């Protein structure tokens, strides 16, 4: 019986820039930052109130996981905003929207009341997009 999801990967163009985005802009906490040598860095972050879900910021680089052609295609697709990787939650969407805007985060949809909830869409520094919803009160 599977009981939990504890790691999830987000593919990023540049780990240093992703670190700045997820830690300094979104306010996530670094869980593990382990360097194995040039181009081999295991970097995971957690949303502030979810320390047991590690988001692995995986560099799209040529290696065992990606052949050169696949890496090039993947970088292209990510930067074009092809992938939506998840839904984040906050307590107050208008305040969070305002704060992230002030920090330079790009939103592709302003907070909008939908039949399923109150939601905005934003992009990370690579081009991955996320929904940001407000916790039901």
């Amino acid at each position: 019986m599977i009981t939990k999801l504890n790691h999830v990967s987000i593919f990023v163009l540049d780990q240093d820039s992703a670190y700045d985005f997820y830690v300094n802009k979104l306010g996530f906490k670094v869980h593990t930052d382990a360097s194995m040598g040039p181009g081999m860095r295991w970097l995971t972050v957690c949303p502030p109130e979810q320390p047991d879900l590690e988001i692995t910021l995986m560099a799209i680089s040529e290696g065992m996981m990606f052949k050169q052609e696949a890496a090039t295609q993947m970088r292209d697709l990510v930067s074009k905003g092809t992938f939506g990787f998840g839904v984040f939650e906050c307590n107050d969407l208008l305040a969070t929207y305002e704060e992230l805007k002030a920090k330079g985060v790009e939103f592709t949809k302003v907070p909008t009341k939908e039949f399923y909830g109150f939601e905005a869409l934003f992009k990370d520094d690579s081009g991955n997009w996320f929904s940001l919803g407000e916790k039901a009160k």
Partner: protein
Amino acid sequence: MNMQADALYPKMYLYRRVVQAKLFIDTHYHQPLNLDDIADEAYFSKFHFIRLFKSTYGKTPHQYLIAVRITNAQRLLKSGMPVTDACYTIGFDSLSSFSALFKRLVKQSPSAWQQAELKRDAEIKKAPLNFIPNCFAEMNGWV
């Protein structure tokens, strides 16, 4: 897009001011801040401000300031800064009140927390593979 949000939500300007106050705390936490300064910064009366801030962030501005200071203390302690230096750098002027607050929020004393973090960092440096799920490491050719 800001104008679009402003048009949709007439109270957006209030959010903007509360958020500005929060960002003010985030960047000035190490200074001797008092609530009047922060409320003034946001153009609010003190009590209106406390109420709005708490309904937005779930903490009073004072509770939030303490949380920001302790988070920054953790960052400094993790970088190896001595406990006393970290205490003064984040804006506390008493080591005992800093230690007591740290312990209340983190459930460990600053020095015990620091030792555990530095030990973990040293272990990551020494044997990084112990901290990486093996399937990922294998897939990337790291083992």
